[in-house]
């Protein structure tokens, strides 16, 4: 079950089942196109599943040998990105952006680890982010997400 094609085919089949079941209550013409697409998608997923047994070409999505610092950094960054968005409602866009921009930058930077260097970096980030924030919101009137703080 470590073949990426096999797992992908099964996930696609699962999506087909979910969407087909949901389409039961749609109006006749509203259900027509989704049903046609689901049938085509399911046939293609079955073809991929069969191909994964007959001609297994793909490896694993994430090779276990590769799960090293590289993927841990990716995962940590992704976690911080999601947290960044989640905290906008509480901290506000500007505060949340300065905080998580700095955190992502710190975990990606292995060279500058001394507290003073980190502080300098956070300061620069705060100025840059605030600059961009005010440039877009005040000059270009681009709307920004709002939270409890700015």
């Amino acid at each position: 079950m470590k073949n990426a094609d096999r797992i992908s085919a099964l996930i696609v089949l699962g999506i087909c089942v979910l969407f087909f079941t949901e389409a039961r209550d749609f109006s006749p013409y509203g259900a027509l196109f989704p049903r046609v697409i689901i049938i085509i998608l399911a046939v293609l997923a079955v073809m991929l599943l069969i191909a994964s047994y007959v001609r297994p070409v793909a490896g694993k999505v994430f090779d276990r040998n590769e799960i090293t610092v590289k993927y841990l950094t990716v995962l940590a960054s992704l976690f911080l990105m999601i947290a960044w968005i989640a905290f906008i409602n509480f901290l506000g866009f500007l505060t949340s952006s300065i905080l998580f921009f700095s955190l992502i930058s710190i975990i990606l930077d292995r060279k500058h680890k001394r507290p003073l260097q980190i502080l300098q970096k956070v300061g620069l980030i705060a100025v840059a982010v605030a600059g961009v924030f005010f440039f877009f919101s005040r000059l270009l009137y681009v709307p920004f997400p709002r939270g409890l703080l700015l």
Partner: protein
Amino acid sequence: MNTFILQSLTNLTQPLNLILITLGVGSGIIVGALPGLTATMAIALLVPFTFSMNPIHGLVLLGGIYCGAIYGGSFSAILINTPGTPSAIATTFDGYPMAKRGESYKAIVTATMASVLGGLIGVVFLLFLTPPLSRISLKFGPPEFFWLTAFGLTIIATLASKSIIKGLIGGAFGLLISTIGIAPIEGSVRYAFGTISLQNGITLIPALIGFFCLPELLGMIEQKEKHYAALPYRKQKNVVLGIFIKLIKKPFLIIRSAVIGTIVGIIPGAGGNIASMVSYNEAVRASKYPQKFGKGAIEGVAAAEASNNAEVSGSLIPLLTLGIPGAPPAAVLLGALLLQGMRPGMDLFTLHGEITFTFIFSLVISNLLILPMGIALGKLVSKLITKLPVVILVPFIFFLTIIGSYSINNNMFDVYVMVFFGVLGYIGRKAGFGPGPVVLGIILGKICEQGLVQAILMGKAEGSVLRMFFLRPISAILIVLTLFSAAWPFLRELAAKRKRHEKR
């Protein structure tokens, strides 16, 4: 039409437009040159910011970025043997060997000249082909639009992905996503899964940003330890004039490559990478000295670069006339047009003629600007390639993706959509599913469904659904093209097998 042309030329003399084009080309060159950052990503990120701008300002800026980024990819292809954008893949074949010989400046000047000439030829095609094609688009009814999208999807699936099945699955998945929200006929709410936010469907731009930007960012983090050793870039005297004379003496090379680029661009989904590969291949076949290619021939660099810059305009031809993007960056530009309330087709050349022609003519300026800017920015770009500031770039681009996704509808749900599709795109890429087919499925889905359902209703009213679908002249041509493009990969494989068999 003449009035629009005059108005658009006047528009282009305005300083702000010229500044925006210059900014677009300059930033495009830098983005295109940095491995991991693509033209599609740059345009997807900037589209939401153009929402509050005047349509002319927004479009000339995006056009400049598109041209600049496709050209910019040649820098990293030549200096570090890694194409900055997928379009520059064929530039590595001869560009890097030239740089290894100490001729990096010569290679970059060749790429610059060829890009300018190819880009300009492409714009000529765009200018002369779009108005008549847009008139033909008036003859398109629901069945024709249905078959056109079917044709587009088969092409996308077979060309845009390494595996045909995965490409088709991606396209069909995109079509399925496009059905979320209110149905175009009968108006029932579909796949909202009990949430109010999904009732309006998936907004295109956040989905595009998610699929094209987030996977690139996560990919950059993966590659952040990778250090590129760039070959030295030093300016030399008399190279510019020398290369110009050499290229002018080979007009067929440039014209052939530009025509190939334009044609490949017109085909939905076939991007600059395919254009440059086909054109490079043809340059080798047509050369008296094919053995020189791959070892640092300027003809190889010129063929690849002329075609990928011509492809920019080619990809805009089906976009502006039929609303079918020829390449992923053009798909994002479609989002920009729709955001400004401009629907592709005849309207663009009548109602919005001034904006459309200003945009088309701005591409001439963008292509011309590549020459001085490419040569002037060379040193800076070669430094940036080797010292890619991932530590700052990743969070900064993510910061822009949040603003971009939010600003379309002032809605945090769109930001969640962007992250969801971004993570899906990243995992999908790992499993061999490219984002191109999915995104084009999302774009074509609404047109496809409306065409299908309306054609059925029209067929029922006229007494025969089959006649409505299969016996209209334009539909018949599109059906033949769809069947041919769907069968093409299998036919190609069969032909290759037969060839191998004969060799034995």
